[in-house]
């Protein structure tokens, strides 16, 4: 089994890439993708820790379910992310229709 550290490192790297992407890019679609990246970094961690805990307990009692709750959260996150994507993409489409651009810096006012 791979040490948990690798998973953590990978998740941190993904999350950081996501944050930096959100902070530095102006294209709404790329920002969106970076947000997905961050969500998936978290998902990766959840799955990794879940496996870790389950592995410890299963060694003594194969029937145990300890640690499996985290995998449920992953599904929740995926569902919410899917919903978010649909809403977010709709917003981006509307944005493009109105200002013919997906650059978020054009959206610095609360009116036209």
């Amino acid at each position, binding site marked *: 089994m791979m040490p948990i550290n690798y998973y953590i490192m990978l998740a941190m790297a993904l999350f950081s890439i996501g*944050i930096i992407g*959100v*902070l*530095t890019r*102006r294209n709404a679609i790329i*920002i969106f993708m970076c947000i997905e990246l961050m969500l998936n970094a978290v998902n990766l961690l959840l799955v990794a820790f879940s496996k870790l805990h389950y592995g410890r307990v299963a060694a003594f009692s194969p029937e145990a379910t300890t640690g499996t709750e985290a995998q449920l959260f992953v599904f929740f996150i995926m569902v919410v992310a899917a919903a978010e994507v649909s809403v977010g993409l709709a917003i981006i489409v509307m944005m493009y229709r109105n200002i013919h651009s997906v650059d*978020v*810096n054009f*959206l*610095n*006012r*609360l009116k036209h």
Partner: protein
Amino acid sequence: MTKLVSLVPLFPLIGFLINGLGRNYLSKSVAAFVGSAMVLAAFIVSILVLNDVRLANAEATIVTLFDFIRTGDLYIPFAFQVDALSALFLLVITGVGFLIHLYSAAYMHEESSDHYARYFAYLNLFVFSMLLLVLGANYLIMFIGWEGVGLCSYLLIGYWFKNQDYGNAAKKAFVMNRIGDLGFLLALFWMLQQFGSLSFSEVFANAPNATTAAITGITLLLFVGATGKSAQIPLYNWLPDAMAGPTPVSALIHAATMVTAGIYMIARSNLLYVLAPTSMTVVAVVGLATAILAASIALRQNDIKKVLAYSTVSQLGYMFLGLGVGAFTGAVFHVMTHAFFKALLFLGAGSVIHAMHHEQDIRKMGGLAKKLPITHLTFLLGCIAIAGIPPFSGFFSKDEILMHAYAAHPIYYYIGMAGALITAFYMFRLYAMTFRGKFRGSDEQAHHLHESPWQMTLPLIVLAVLSVVAGFLGIPELFAHDAHKLQAFLAPIFATGSSYMEAHAVDHSTEWVLLGTSVVLILGIVAFAWNRFAKDPDLHNASGFGKILAEKWYVDELYAAIITKPMQLLAGFLNRVVEKSGIDGLVNGVGRSVQWSGRQLRLLQSGQVGSYVLWMVLGMLLLIVVSVFKIF
């Protein structure tokens, strides 16, 4: 009839409401009729009440109208006390009050009808408050009346409020009265704390058990109230300025009734004062000092009403001297005779002013005796009465006070006598310069000189008769045994008080000598003043010591320098420095700093999504740092 005593104040109250509410609709004759008739009705009830009191001898009747304050242990009923003292004051107030209402009807006829009705409304309200003051069965009701008369005094002094000076005089009177009232109020609180009640019967019943220190404190504070209302040193100088009001007002409020409220109050509380010898001495000394100071100022005044005003202050001083030496009956007697002759003199002065078309300077009068025969004769009788020439009323009452003063300490008598001589001098100076010699006014005035209508002369005649005969109510023991009717009448009021005092009696031979000397001296002074000022009226401005007297010993200036000026400086400092830079600075500073910080924070709201995210990330980093390193 005693049960119906509440009618006495009720009538003027009704008159006040009718005139006050209907002042825009009532014609002058209706307003005058309502005003006068209500006081006349009160007068008639007062006579019946007095008759009852005389028959019931000694017993005070308490008439409780309703509960005024009832909370916990504190119970103050709205009650009237009818006894010899209040019945006597009722009679004087409503009697003199009615005559003055009648007089006002003619005197004020130049006013427009709404102001005319306003005048009568105020006058009726005054009579109501004054009746409340003397009828109250506890100090709180007395205090209500006490404040009421102060208010009416203010309203009537400032009756011609369009004149700035008159308005200022009204404010001065009100403020100085308020200073006194504060003393009165503190005395009430102290009394409440000491005795748990404000009703006369309970306070007097418990007073002998209280400590002398407490009684002295209470009585001195009450006396502070009296100095304000009755114009004694140090609060006397509002009264001469109060002459800004219409002359009948000066006669009623500032001579006959309101200013004697202090004397009534001390006479009513005689038991408390007797238990506090220090307070008695203070009262006597202040009274005497006021008597002599005011008399000296009156020597050099040229305004006919100012002379009478200072004379009033001086006579009030005598009354306080009487109270201070234990001559309670004498003081009340003097209140009564003074009400008659001083009201007479003021109304006479009003008649003169009326005839002279609002000229008040006696240097521009002279020789009015022939033109105004009734005014002249009655004024002369008033002067004789106040000068203390037997057998006029002033002689008896003043003599009674001075004899008691001699018994207490001869020095009181000598100073008091000197004051009486000065009184005789300035009164006859006033008389001679007004009515004797040659007329010094303009031809215009000489042409229009006329005797006043009957509404004005009738009160003069009635008051003149009273000034002449009222003295016979109090013939001293010296002349006839048991002839002092007033003493017998008032005896129940002062009996308990007198029992605590050692009786000083002057033996009859000394009394004869003092009496004879004083009468001879007064007659001499009167003859001198009459001659001197009829032939050679002093028309030039006073110089030297006379100037100091003419300028009223510069007391007003002194007060301005030591009280008003520092107060104004303090107020100016508070206004310019504390208010402007302190309080305003603080308030504006808070506003400005909020505005400034708002302007700075506004910049965060750039609308750039990127910057929001950046801040969010920085915030999260901060939270992580905080939680990891456990900073808080």
